[in-house]
């Protein structure tokens, strides 16, 4: 769907505070993703190996 980036790929002038905020937002979102995966019949089809595989 979209390319995934890491905070390290942000422009060099981005402050540490902004990088930390982005990371905090991702953690909040990942907690919600975990809830969705647990509840969704679609997500239950995803094997642990697939979950760990690099995403294109």
């Amino acid at each position, binding site marked *: 769907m*979209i390319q995934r980036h890491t905070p390290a790929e942000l*422009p060099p002038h981005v402050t540490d505070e902004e990088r930390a905020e982005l990371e905090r*937002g991702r953690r909040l979102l990942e907690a919600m*993703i975990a809830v*969705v995966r647990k509840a*969704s019949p*679609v*997500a239950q089809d*995803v094997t642990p190996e697939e979950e760990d595989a690099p995403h294109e």
Partner: protein
Amino acid sequence: MNDIGALTIAKLQDAISAGRLSAVDVTGYYLDRVEASQPILSAYTSIDTGGALAQARAIDERVARGEPVGPLAGVPVSVKDIIDVRGLATTGCSRSALGEVPARDAEVVARLRACDAIILGKANCHEFAFGGPSFDLPFPPARNPWNPEYFPGGSSSGSGVSVAAGLCLASIGTDTAGSIRTPSGHCGVVGLMPGYDRLSRHGVRPLSITMDHVGPMARNTRDCRTVYECLTGSDTGEGDAGIRYRRGDFSGLRFGMAAVGWGLEDRLHPEVRAAYNAAGLLVEDGGGFVEQVRLPSLELVHAAASVTMMAEVAANHAPAVRANYDDYGTVFRSRTLAGEAVRLDDYMAAISLRDTLYRATIRLFDRVEFIALPVSVNPPGKLAAVDRFYFMGDPNINILANFLHLPAVTLPCGVSKQGLPIGMQLLGRRGSEASLLDIAEGLERRIGRWDDQRTDKVI
């Protein structure tokens, strides 16, 4: 505030169409108020003085010639700055879009013009309806007219502020996760989020394509209904039950209260809880039957809807943010890029829950006509203290309706100890907008209309 400012939409339209009041005078009155308020409230991002007065003159001339005028003749309106108004920049309150001037009106704006509304200008909002409140955008954030130190809600912040402060009579906002209902609740006005696809999104800058809704905001339910009818081009009807409900007679009405069953009771601020529960008692006073209902898990609703929204926002905006990073505010880019954490399979998993959650929710409407919920867990807080990810940290009550495409109407139901409004919302089944407005009008009657409690003290 003089007599002009006290007029509702119906009374203003009646006076203008009968020639007792000049549309130019009304427009001038509101433009003067807007200008005076801007340094304090920042409700508008652009003000179309020339265009508004030209529209007003044309209406006065038609009235003088004895020609009919529309149901919004001379009614001053603001339009959220992600919605196209021909000749005015649609900035989205973003440096990235400054100077983008559309040649055509959005469909909802064209409908307003067809009803002879006066477009005063563009209402301030969070950056592309997502990044805010922010202090690093081309426009300062809108401020709550009840106390400018406080958050007016968002993302249709300027819409709520402009209506509440008497800087227009109605506004058009958008709602992806509560963006009409939160500012309506925080500013003490009425906001309707119609069901998905009830109003055209043509000419509206998309944020999250399966969650975005367009809707009206106004001082009271009757004004909100009038604008909604103009936007849909239809009459919302005068059924027997509806007429009774509007009078506050709720006999026979089954009314659902969902905060307890949703696990919200312990999370609600005591002042929000008191105002919400008091509204339930008013329904019972009116002869209605209140029943506690249990919505699907709040944690799951919040997660599935938020994952969907964050993925769609990232798909929509992240490439541009990456390419032109400094053209965006820090709040917008942090939120948008956080959405890149959602993988395609996670997005599909979230979307797959929509139907399950819809079926679990819609079953409740076999037992009750409507479900009442607070608009937010807490009363409005200080503007400078709003957390960047507040919509993910606290459970988002509003996002259920966006995710399931259900209509909801917000109305004021109390005031916090800090003197800020507290709002509640009524949620209905798809297609129930007219009935929602009936119930809201009756409830508004029992709570007490707020027309005389606008925040004139600020300007």
